């Protein structure tokens, strides 16, 4: 096998090289040397992006598992495996990110022995730990199938209902609890983003992003791995995304209305600019786009709307984690290049691992039987996903 140097491979190597350099600085010079975090800004880009956004971007896993196995939406069967894979990788990378951000990562296991049940962080930690295990088991059939091991697949099938219910329960808990983390800072976080409803916003936005990410990922995979794009799947997801966005928008509106903030959010200010950017990307553009049937039926339209949604909610989380604190602190926080480089390295690792998994594991089993894939929608979903199709029975 010959290694060909393509453009993206060069980009990947450069990112990894810089990331390794930054990792060296992180572990041999300390957090102060690698980041622009200070006593005034103890949480920076890594909490804002790697943790808050990372967990949100991995929400596709529980959304698709919920849709297909809980609500029996058969037509979405083909996206469950890639969604679960993305979620599994996402959570592993979230933990990797945490190992960079924690001051004493070698004591991360203290969570298990010095428990503080009053702490939201403790709850998030336990949920993430357990949910990553659940995702591991949901992902495992891919490996077993690859090596034609039927017995362990049967075992996993037996516990699959438990995995599904547990996975969604844990996701509900920690997706919302990421928002609860900020409930204790009413005097610090800007009122545009501080709200008693934060846990609800975080959960609702995770569902919307889960749907948008699945559209994004399916389209990207189709391009990257030369797969046939399943439009009916995207159309279903696009419809669900529109509903999810409306729910999010109404929740936010209701919150601003109840807290009497509606007048203030339209007054120009530093925070208002970021809020406008966020609201435009999360609600105005994608809701407008998806309201047209033409867009909802076109792969490009759905792709653009979902990319916009994802960017919008990333802005939302960064606003909460970084911008919302700047007025309180009294100065700006701009991440150091080494912080960006570690974040980029983690993202690059995610893409690379996804590519490897798709290459060596039956993540898109339909790919090998393009004829059967079209049949699938009319007959049984079992053909495309032999294991997971039965898994819930």
């Amino acid at each position, binding site marked *: 096998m010959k290694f060909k140097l393509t453009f993206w491979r060069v980009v990947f190597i450069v990112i990894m090289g810089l990331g390794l350099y930054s990792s060296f600085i992180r572990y041999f010079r300390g*957090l102060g040397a690698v980041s622009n975090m200070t*006593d005034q800004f103890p949480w920076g880009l890594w909490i804002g992006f790697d943790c808050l956004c990372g967990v949100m971007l991995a929400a596709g896993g529980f959304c698709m598992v919920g849709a297909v196995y809980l609500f029996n939406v058969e037509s979405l069967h083909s996206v469950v495996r890639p969604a679960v894979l993305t979620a599994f990788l996402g959570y592993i990378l979230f933990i990797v990110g945490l190992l960079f*951000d924690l001051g004493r990562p070698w004591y991360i296991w203290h969570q298990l022995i010095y428990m503080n049940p009053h702490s939201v962080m403790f709850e998030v930690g336990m949920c993430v730990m357990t949910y990553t295990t659940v995702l591991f088991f949901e992902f495992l059939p891919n490996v077993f199938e690859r090596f034609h091991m039927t017995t362990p697949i049967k075992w996993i099938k037996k516990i699959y209902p438990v995995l599904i219910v547990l996975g969604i329960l844990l996701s509900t808990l920690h997706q919302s609890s990421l928002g609860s983390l900020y409930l204790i800072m009413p*005097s610090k976080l800007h009122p545009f983003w501080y709200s008693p409803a934060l846990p609800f916003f975080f959960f609702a936005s995770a569902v919307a992003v889960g749907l948008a990410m699945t559209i994004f990922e399916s389209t990207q995979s189709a391009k990257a791995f030369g797969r046939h794009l399943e439009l009916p799947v995207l159309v279903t997801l696009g419809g669900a995304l529109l509903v999810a966005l409306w729910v999010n928008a109404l929740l936010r509106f209701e919150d601003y209305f109840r807290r009497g903030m509606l007048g203030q959010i339209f007054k120009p200010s530093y925070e208002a600019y970021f809020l406008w950017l966020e609201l435009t990307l999360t609600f105005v553009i994608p809701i407008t786009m998806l309201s047209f049937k033409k867009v909802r039926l076109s792969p490009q339209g759905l792709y653009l709307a979902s990319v916009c949604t994802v960017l919008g909610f990333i802005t939302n989380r960064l606003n909460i984690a970084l911008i919302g604190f700047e007025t309180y602190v009294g100065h700006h926080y701009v991440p150091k290049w080494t912080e960006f480089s570690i974040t980029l390295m983690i993202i690059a690792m995610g893409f690379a691992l996804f590519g490897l998994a798709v290459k060596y594991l039956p993540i898109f089993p339909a790919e090998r039987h393009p004829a059967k894939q079209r049949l699938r929608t009319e007959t049984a979903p079992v053909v495309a996903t032999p294991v997971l199709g039965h898994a819930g029975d």
Partner: protein
Amino acid sequence: MSKALLYDATMCIGCKQCEAGCAQQNKLRYDDTVAAESVQSAHKYTVVLTKDDKFMRRLCMHCEKPACASVCPVGAFHKTKEGPVVYDVWKCIGCRYCMVACAFAQPKYEWQSLNPRVRKCIMCPDRIAAGKQTACAEICPTGATKFGERDDLIKEAQDRIRQNPSTYLPRIYGLHEVGGTSVLILSSVNVEEYGYPASAKIGDTPMPEYTGQVMERIPDFIPVWTLVLGGIYWVSHRREEVAAAEAEEKNGSER
């Protein structure tokens, strides 16, 4: 009965003896450079600020219901019954949630260290346990920082305000803020001018209650949500089973 510190800014002469005493007690470097620093940091737990010939001390407030203790995932902070909020470094994983959660922004971090610790005033718990007063109170030449029982100090502060209403603002900062703190402040100017958070902004609600309201619902939420999810699963798959059985029956009769 818990111990507390009463800091009377009108009695403070800005000698910074408390800074020096604190540094000595906590084995921290203290020289002219450190003395000139007007911010708290991992190597300076308390600071005397100067503004228009008036002084103000800053230190950990030792909340009655501390946010740091409630948010720490590994319980590295706790409020002792004597009053101090102390830190167990061996538990700490370095998530820095305490720093973000503290309304008074007191916990500081050893950013340059490879095994960093959270640093803040811990109100000399060893000295208190030994029946002594804190290092800063002991060294204070004017009695501006006074150590004693919280209830007694509150009474004394109220007396001082009553006797000299023209000197003091009629309030004790820390009496009700975030549910009360073990550091009480009397002054002739608003403490907010020295970087203390405004009383109106932080309120009288103990900080842990903001997250507690959500956290206490979780034990109920888990079984209810599990039942709901399990129920949906059962219903949607039951329907499938019935459909499959019916289809089979149909096939059978056709044959």
